[in-house]
């Protein structure tokens, strides 16, 4: 079980929110319309099946994932139900004529959106904790929720039972709000390292 004090939990939450705030402002600028991003909840689960996402196992989701290496290692993912991902891309791109599925170009745009958000989260953590993190290029996947974490190339998370840090993210756009998730899939060792780094950071800043 991952045990975090309220302060540690709040600190991680704060770091993430700084990150997504930055991501939102760059997105707003890029699409020339107000985009707000909030992370109303962060939760930790030890099994993917315990997460809210797994409630609809056959729902098709679109995910942009980036693996990261550093003091803690794992995979970060921005996940949307496919329908929501279509909505998001189309509101961002102001598309007049929607097609039934994501086109190549829309898929790449979603990848960029994921890339900006994930970079921002990881960058914010890395920056504040003072530890560099290496990230891979984002990849795109579309599959049923229950297979979301299968056959991953990020060895660390696949090898052992992963622990998940799940951020519920909310896009607030002009027309509608779109809910998605950011998943940090790490092994137990990595998550303990993260907690350790957070504690160290707190100790430094409270001194």
């Amino acid at each position, binding site marked *: 079980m991952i045990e975090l004090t309220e302060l540690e939990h709040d600190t991680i939450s704060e770091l993430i929110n700084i990150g997504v705030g930055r991501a939102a402002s*760059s997105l707003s600028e*890029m*699409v020339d319309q107000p985009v707000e991003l909030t992370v109303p909840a962060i939760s930790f689960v030890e099994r993917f099946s315990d997460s809210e996402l797994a409630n609809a196992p056959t729902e098709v989701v679109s995910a942009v994932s*980036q693996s990261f290496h550093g003091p803690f290692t794992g995979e970060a993912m921005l996940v949307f139900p496919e329908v929501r991902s279509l909505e998001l*891309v189309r509101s*961002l*791109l102001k*598309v*007049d*004529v929607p*097609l039934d599925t994501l*086109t*190549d*170009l*829309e898929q*790449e*745009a979603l*990848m*960029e*959106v994921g*890339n*900006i958000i994930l*970079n921002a989260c*990881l*960058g914010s953590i*890395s*920056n504040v904790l003072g530890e*560099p*993190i*290496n*990230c*891979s*290029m*984002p990849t795109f996947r579309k599959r049923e929720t229950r297979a979301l974490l299968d056959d991953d190339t990020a060895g660390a998370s696949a090898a052992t039972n992963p622990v998940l840090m799940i951020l519920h993210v909310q896009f607030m756009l002009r027309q509608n709000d779109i809910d998605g998730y950011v998943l940090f899939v790490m092994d137990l060792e990595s998550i303990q390292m993260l907690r350790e780094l957070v504690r160290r950071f707190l100790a430094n800043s409270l001194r």
Partner: protein
Amino acid sequence: MTKSQSAKGDQPPSFDLNRDSDAADLFAALLDTADTGLIALAPDGTICHWNQWMQSRSGKDADQVMGKALHDVFPDTKLGRVSLAIEDCLKFGMPAVISPSLNQGALPLRPLPQFAASFDRMEQSIRVHPIQTKRNGTLCSLIIRDVTLAVQRDRLLRQQAAELADLVTQTKRSEDRTRAILQNTIDAILVASDDGSIEPLNSRAQELCGPTGDPELRNIIRFLLPDSEHTPLTPPPPNRLLTDLGTGVIEVLASTLSGRNVPLEVAISHFSADQRYHYIITLRDISQRKRHEKEIQRTMQELERSNAELEQFAYAASHDLQEPLRMVSSYTQLLARRYEGQLDETADEFIHYAVDGTQRMQRMIDDLLTLSRVGRHGKPFNPVPLDNLFDAIVTNFRRAGSTPEGNIIREGHLPTVMGDASQLLLLFQNLVSNGLKYSDPKNGQVRIFASETSDSYRIFVADNGIGIDPQYHETIFEIFKRLHGYGDYAGTGIGLAICKKIVDRHGGNIDVTSKPGQGSTFCVELPKELSIVAASESM
């Protein structure tokens, strides 16, 4: 690598990647022949590689850009997504995807000539990678792909999708409209194919052919279709076909299971579709019309009956009146002859009035008999040359010596009309006689002339007499209408009534134009083609 190392001792390889110069040659060639743009940036953000592709698409040679920051080469990228991505890459080692949809023409590169018309800039998909080196720290690479073609395809696809969606909407709208028209039309519409199937198209048709409709109706329709060789047919019961099939108007009787008898008019048209012949059958409910037809028929019969009765009555009355009148007339005339001058003057005067009265009454009865005969004893219609007819009239007048020579003038040729010669003679004789009667006896003149319209002849009888006040133009044709006292102008007041009756029987029309003191012109208009009623009466 391992293989080339083991081969090294035996024979110097022609090419060795461990040799710096060989590796440099290879990598330089690879970079320059790549079909993507490649830029490498040093940790301080200055350009340290700019491949051949970049040179040709940006129009800037490597020499021009080496050692400069990207935003110095392309000033408009200074605050954009590319610069931020480069900064994140160099500072935090973050990779980046820069998509064409979110960043149109991220770098100011030229599109290939074939796209120049629709694109100002090349559409690009860019990857920003951190490159960790042992000696120089973190470098940054930009890989730029030209995706203009994909963007163009995407635009085209969307345009076509939009057009398709428009078309679908339009088609749907027009279909809805057609369906609404079809459904709300009062007639029942069905379509029959040459395989004998009959499909109701609207709710009215469904009503007539559906489960509560007439089970026989489809058979009747099949029987009526021009081409029904494919299926053997049983003729419908004779009481279900209301009109003869030869007349062009087809009327059938539908007898629905809900217990209604509906007379229907059937119209059949056809069209070809899918290389097959189809018929459109329109069934119109003519119950209302049928009711009216019956009503009219009944009224007509009633009228004919009462007319016949009336004529019979008039004839009988005038005929029977003659007998006692003749008695009175004979004896008063006898009185006048035998006792004239033997009684006093007053008695002579009284006897004269009595004789005159019986004579007038005799004329009136004669006229009434004539009037009643117009309807009862008409002869069949024949061609009547009016020139000959008027010759006879003039001769009659001359023989009677009632008119001076040359006062009946014919202007031009008169037509030949269809009619009852003796009645037409009576008609025009009356008109001419009237014209002369109401004129100055010395200078009275009657002109006769004719004109023609597309479907009728008009014969005019004009005099230069006293004329008629317009308020009497209608009533003068009524029986016993007289505008003057008997003493002024002789007559029974039946002459014009006889004229009108004759003209009516010929399916024509009579009217007068006149002003007091300026003469009158009577116009008789006779149709060139006899109407069905007049023709049947003329038989």
